[in-house]
């Protein structure tokens, strides 16, 4: 007989591997949302996603203005790729995006991480990426629990009702 029993989501592990505003916030919003629902939550940052937990970069994330076909001008016209490559454009667009997010009461990255941790969420950094970029625990936000290996990561994913989400 087919098993139709629903297993509620009990634990999520979110992997953040990219460092643009939208990629990082996708992980943070989903992580914070999970904590808010009482789901056990762990966030794992790797490769360029490390920018989200590095003290010197976490609140200065950018969005890509080149190679981003969904990018629009204010008003909705297409955003020309050549314009995105001009000096200062990416910084300006990114600052604008952060300002719009602030209006919606979306916190800065450091504050967002602190809210997640306040709710019992855990933050981890990838050992391989840390070695590759020469990053040590001191470079990372104080709330990052540890720098761990892939094996450690999978070991945390035990139990029914666990999901791994890659952003």
């Amino acid at each position, binding site marked *: 007989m087919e098993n139709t029993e629903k297993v509620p989501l009990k634990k999520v592990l979110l992997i953040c591997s990219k460092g643009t505003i939208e990629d990082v916030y996708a992980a943070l919003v989903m992580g*914070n949302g999970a904590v*808010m629902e009482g789901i056990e939550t762990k966030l794992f940052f790797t490769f360029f996603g490390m920018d989200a937990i590095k003290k010197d970069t976490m609140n200065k994330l950018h969005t890509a203005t080149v190679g981003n076909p969904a990018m629009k001008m204010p008003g909705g016209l297409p955003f020309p790729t050549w314009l995105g490559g001009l000096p200062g454009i990416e910084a300006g667009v990114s600052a604008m995006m952060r300002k719009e997010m602030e209006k919606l*009461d979306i916190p800065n990255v450091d504050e967002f991480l602190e809210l997640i941790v306040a709710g019992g969420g855990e933050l981890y950094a990838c050992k391989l990426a840390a070695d590759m970029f020469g990053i040590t625990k001191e470079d990372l936000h104080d709330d990052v629990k540890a720098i761990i290996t892939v094996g450690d990561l999978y070991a945390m994913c035990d139990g029914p009702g666990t999901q791994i989400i890659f952003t």
Partner: protein
Amino acid sequence: MATKTYAGVNVELNDEGYMTDSSQWTKEIATEIAKQEGVELTDKHFEVLEFIRNKSAEGATLTIRGINKSGVVDAKSFYQMFPGAPLKKSTKIAGVPKPESCI
């Protein structure tokens, strides 16, 4: 839509158990809803509930960040006071609608 008796009062509830008429709310009703949610209310809880009720009456969107900045309670204590899903639980106990918020 259903009605349930809390503290001797017939309270109107929606399908998820949230009060549909916030003006019916009393501390006694809150205490009974809280018990059902597994929360024992203290004076501190009532301070938080009051903040939530005021914000809701203003029509503001409730978020964890807003609670953290309220000056009444920080996020960590808020999670401890209403374990599990704090925003959902506290609004249910405060007799206000479930917050439509992703953050």
